[in-house]
């Protein structure tokens, strides 16, 4: 399934209101978008599914504004990024809640493995922007230019976020003994 498929499906949705074409787009991108949210929310599966659902609904509602200049995937991640930051801003008042308790609850709910806990622990060391940039770069294989479009910030800033994130994460992983046996 290539980018031309994406454009064909987008055209089918916008011109004929073909919901089955949008279903194909959802099926294609659900995994990466849900994984992106899952990592940003530190493994909160119900929240990440809600955010992913909101992302796809917003994408459907605003499909007319997709110009096709950037790829559909980049456009979708841009919406996902906005949805996540809107949600984070609206939930700021929950910041005082004991984070340890939330983490413990998620741990039991989602039955995370030790490796998964490692990734969330590692991501917690980063600032929100660094988390996003690092996840898009290393996990979702986006280029610096695409990340700049998604985060709507200059290319230099994206490179700084990734560099800083990389430093912090590599220090953490080296100290945790990751990669020593390889």
């Amino acid at each position: 399934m290539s980018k031309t498929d994406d454009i064909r499906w987008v055209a089918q949705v916008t011109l004929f209101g073909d919901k089955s074409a949008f279903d194909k787009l959802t099926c294609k991108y659900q995994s990466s978008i849900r994984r992106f949210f899952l990592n940003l929310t530190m493994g909160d599966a119900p929240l990440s599914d809600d955010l992913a659902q909101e992302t796809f609904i917003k994408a459907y509602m605003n499909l007319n504004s997709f110009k096709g200049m950037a790829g559909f995937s980049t456009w979708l991640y841009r919406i996902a990024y906005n949805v996540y930051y809107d949600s984070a801003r609206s939930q700021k008042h929950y910041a005082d809640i004991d984070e340890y308790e939330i983490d413990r609850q998620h741990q039991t709910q989602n039955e995370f493995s030790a490796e998964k806990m490692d990734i969330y622990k590692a991501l917690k060391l980063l600032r929100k922007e660094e988390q996003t940039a690092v996840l898009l770069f290393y996990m979702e294989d986006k280029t610096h230019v695409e990340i700049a479009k998604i985060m709507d910030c200059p290319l230099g800033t994206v490179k700084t976020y990734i560099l800083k994130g990389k430093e912090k994460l590599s220090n953490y992983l080296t100290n945790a003994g990751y990669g020593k046996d390889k």
Partner: protein
Amino acid sequence: MQVMEKINNDDLLLKSFFNENKEKIADNGFSKQVLKQIPETPNYEWVVWLFAAIGVAISLLLGYSSGLFAMALTYLRQIPFYYLVGIVFCFPLMAMLAVCSQQNCRFKIA
């Protein structure tokens, strides 16, 4: 030189770490749930029919008032009868060809 080496090593370390943690999330009804949540878009097809009807009405009115229909009728009367019969008999043939080509397109898409 050492700095570049460290950056490259860090890159490899992180790539391998994130690749190990990269998992494909199964759909498990997620896309169906999204499809259910999508609001119904209003159907504006009636606008097309309305404008088509207005267009037909205007053209009929203009054709009648300007005497175009009377001219056309006079012109048709001048055409030999067997020509008209031939045209009428061509219609089913043309329609059959149109249907066949449409069916053919449909089969190709499927």
